[in-house]
């Protein structure tokens, strides 16, 4: 069992928790993920690490309530326990040789982009952060990003905060103006990452994308997290849990990933509704 040391609501649907898991905290690096189960008989869900305190032995997770399991997790209080918490899984984000980096985060993906931005800042790289949300109410982690960024741009889809429009607008402006990033790292909805990749490709700037596919074990056993890369005209199957979650954006078959990501859409929607009803009754 793993204790919830702190819990904080970041916006109406996004929650931050710090979980006591000393072994995971000791090893975790930006870009890696954990798998948790809220309770016995619960489902295993992957969540990317949003931070860690090695001395305190805690790992920070930030999640959006989207389904039954995140709903259950969100009902857990500070001081309560979750059943299982395993990691750190996957490979860490590569930082070697990157002096100028652009971090492009979207929605709750910003929670994962933030520790990556912080790591580059700590390593002395020039950090540009572009983060986008649907509207003002959903904005999270603005101060944290500002603190670790040399350049910072806030975007909202409806223009209710920061600049109006999506994250590719300022990215394209910067690239057009001759900004030479060593790497663009993008974390967020698949559709956003697809378009960030297409934008970067126009200028030949390399892109790393953080994939978050369906997983069961997360240790290289089930193969559910497979995705297709196009490498030199050849289609190659990779497993996000052991080969990723970071991949070269140019190579990822996004359309396939988007389709596969919707496999259990109906099941999840129904399960979420049922869970919500349980809490309403209680």
């Amino acid at each position, binding site marked *: 069992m793993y204790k919830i040391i702190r819990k904080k609501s970041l916006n109406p649907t996004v929650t931050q928790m710090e979980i006591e898991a000393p072994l995971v905290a000791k090893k975790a690096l930006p870009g890696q993920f954990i798998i948790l189960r809220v309770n016995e008989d619960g*489902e295993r869900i992957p969540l990317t690490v949003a931070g860690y305190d090695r001395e305190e032995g805690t790992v920070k997770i930030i999640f959006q309530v989207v389904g039954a399991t995140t709903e259950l997790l969100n009902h857990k209080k500070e001081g309560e326990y979750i059943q299982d918490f395993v990691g750190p899984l996957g490979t860490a984000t590569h930082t070697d040789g990157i002096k100028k980096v652009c971090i492009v985060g979207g929605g709750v993906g910003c929670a994962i982009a933030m520790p990556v931005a912080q790591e580059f800042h700590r390593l002395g790289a020039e950090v540009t952060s572009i983060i986008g949300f649907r509207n003002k109410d959903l904005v999270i982690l603005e101060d944290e990003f500002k603190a670790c960024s040399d350049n910072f741009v806030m975007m909202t889809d409806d223009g209710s905060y920061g600049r109006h429009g999506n994250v590719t607008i300022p990215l394209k402006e910067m690239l057009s103006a001759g900004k030479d990033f060593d790497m663009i790292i993008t974390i967020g909805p698949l559709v956003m990452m697809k378009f960030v990749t297409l934008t970067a490709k126009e200028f030949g700037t390399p892109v790393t994308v953080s994939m978050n596919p369906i997983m069961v074990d997360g240790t290289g*056993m089930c193969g559910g997290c497979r995705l297709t890369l196009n490498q030199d005209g050849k289609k190659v199957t990779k497993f996000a849990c052991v080969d990723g979650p970071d991949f070269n954006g140019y190579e990822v078959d996004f359309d396939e990933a988007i*389709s596969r990501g919707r496999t259990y859409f109906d099941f999840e929607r129904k399960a979420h509704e049922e869970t919500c009803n349980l809490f309403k009754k209680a």
Partner: protein
Amino acid sequence: MAINPKKHEMPAQDPIVRAGNFKEVALGYTAEIAIEEAKRCLNCKNKPCVNGCPVNINIPDFITKIKEGDFEGAYQIIAKDSSLPAVCGRVCPQESQCESKCTLGIKFEPVGIGRLERFVADWHNENSCDVPLTAEANGKKVAIVGSGPAGLTCAGDLAKKGYSVTVFEALHTAGGVLVYGIPEFRLPKDIVKKEVEGLKAIGVDVQTNVVIGKTLTVDELFDMGYEAVFIGSGAGLPKFMRIKGESLKGVYSANEFLTRINLMKAYKPDATTPIQRGKRVAVVGGGNVAMDAARCAKRLGADVTIVYRRTEEELPARREEVEHAKEEGIKFMLLTNPLEIAGDENGWVSGMRCQKMELGEPDASGRRRPVAIEGAFADIDVDCVIMALGTSPNPLIKDTTKGLDTASWGGITVEEETGKTSKEGVYAGGDAVTGAATVILAMGAGKTAAKAIDEYLQNK
């Protein structure tokens, strides 16, 4: 009295009934049947069956105890050599091991050794409440990576010798393939749980949610004071055919399909883990895992076809599993090899195109090689495809352990007689070494390594 030429039949659930539930298929001998079956043993002098057993259980002796009605005595004889008798009695391929050597088998059907082993283990689990003996601690710590059959056997043997043993398991439940792979109807999970509890009772510490190679490395285990490490991390990443359409929704690896059902209980109506309930399912492959996946899909209500590129004779699955599958109404499309999986406009599987095959010349394995019959195709109407083609080794330990040699295909290289790897104090066994094999071979490897680790640490 004349010897009954046939084994006493195993009482089983009716095929039509069981194809709709996940309860155990084989129900087990009663005491009366067990005694009668035990009487068929000739108690011959040279005991060939013992050599047919990878862990060399003293088979004639335990059968003699059954004849005498001393079931606990029989259990104690088995327990000397096997850590998991209730498991082995169910999933060992006895027909190609102990029973294949049985003297009675020359003229008649061999003694039902596996069925008797299962009876004895179940009898013990139900009737015995003996507190297990714990050995005097020798103060030495050994780490076991993986809680599957290899790891549990190695852990049990070392604990019985007085070692302080910790088993590290990546998943949230101990048991490895016994819990995520083999279905409930073939090996009830309560039995695995009981075996694990038995090991805990003799002092084995089981740490779930620890991925060696990620949470901790093998070198860190030594830093923590473990003096030897046994790696029984099992098989790894599932293989796919690399044909068009394998990423469509509705295509599963057998590992994923079985894990969702067995470990995550997705077959239960109130399960939190989803699974697609296909109406027409094709399972590609002919091994035991393919049979397990097919029989699970059947129990979820599907019309199931096994697609295999050779003939029934070459099916690598146990005969008994094939028969069970057939009785439950699973169809076999033999000499058929998938070419492409078709999808609908929403990315779901809508069919599979296959090549018809014929058998050609024998290949390196001695089996006749399947060759395509030009222009002969078969289109199957399916909405779910399960690939049961084996696995390739998991890279997590190999990539994080300096000095650990692996074969070109990724399996850990060991000295066969001891399980010793190229790294000092590190031993390995089971699927991580051999590639996908059987539970009992993994147990045998765990046993061999336990003996070698004991010798190594005594002389250290």
